[in-house]
């Protein structure tokens, strides 16, 4: 994955950047499978590697294949992103250890979902039960966000076409 990222940054030909991006997404999907998050992995493989690659290729078709020359030295953005990354890494030190059963997230409502979920909803897959039933409001919000984003893009692209 690191190789793909470095190659992506160094590469000037945007077509190969898009292909590297797809490779990165597939590697990310395998990482998610290894973390037992199969449904997230499915989404990553289909959206990250599939549909967004197609959309990026479509955008390339409209704009042309090579990156524009840089206007200035990328020193300030580089320092800034390294600083932000360092702060995030420092923050992750304060997190509980990976798969620690005593972590706050595992002691709040999760045990109740795991214990009572199958009886209350009759759905053996707890992820589905939490997503659609216990957290129904959140999922409704997510669906509305997806809808709003799609409607916004439609509105933007339509108006362009009309003006031409």
């Amino acid at each position, binding site marked *: 994955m690191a190789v793909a990222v470095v190659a992506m940054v160094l590469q000037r030909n945007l077509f190969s950047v898009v292909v590297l991006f797809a490779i990165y997404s597939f590697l990310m999907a395998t990482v998610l499978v290894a973390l037992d998050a199969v449904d997230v992995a499915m989404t990553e493989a289909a959206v990250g590697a599939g549909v967004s690659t197609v959309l990026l290729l479509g*955008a390339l078709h409209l704009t042309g294949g090579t990156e524009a020359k840089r206007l200035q030295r990328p020193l300030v953005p580089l320092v800034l992103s390294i600083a932000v990354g360092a702060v995030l890494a420092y923050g992750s030190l304060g997190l509980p250890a990976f798969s620690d059963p005593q972590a706050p997230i595992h002691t709040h409502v999760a045990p109740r979902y795991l214990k009572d979920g199958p009886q209350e909803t009759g759905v053996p897959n707890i992820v589905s039960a939490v997503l659609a039933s216990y957290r129904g409001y959140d999922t409704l919000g997510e669906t509305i966000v997806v809808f709003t984003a799609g409607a916004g893009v439609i509105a933007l692209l339509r108006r362009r076409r009309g003006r031409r």
Partner: protein
Amino acid sequence: MKDDIILRVVAKLLMPFMLLFALYVQFHADFGPGGGFQAGVIGAAAIVFYALIFGLRAGQRLAPDWVVEKMLATGVLVYAGVGIAGLALGGNYLDYFVLGADPVSGQHRGIFWVEAGVLLTVAGVMLKLFYMFAGRGRGAGEE
């Protein structure tokens, strides 16, 4: 890519399996990983794949533009409608317990319709974005 016989044959062979897998992910979500989001993107990816190989026109014959546009809004309305149905049957908003004869079958029914709403919206947004991007190059380029 319309003239490449290997791509055409492979695409025709794979299409039923991709769509079937999307449906499997949708309706088997009670027992295995999956759900509306995943099924929506897999189904949309299958149609995008078909449109890439056989041309945008063929893809739009498979999933017409106006249907896709309606799917966007229908999904949200189905989801919100499940909530309203819960209200009408005497529960709280998005309460599924009241939807069936007993609480567990009510939950099943509620989750089923909610997932169907998510599927419609997600697949609709994906396809619509693809159609808009692909359709814009149409005026200028070959493809």
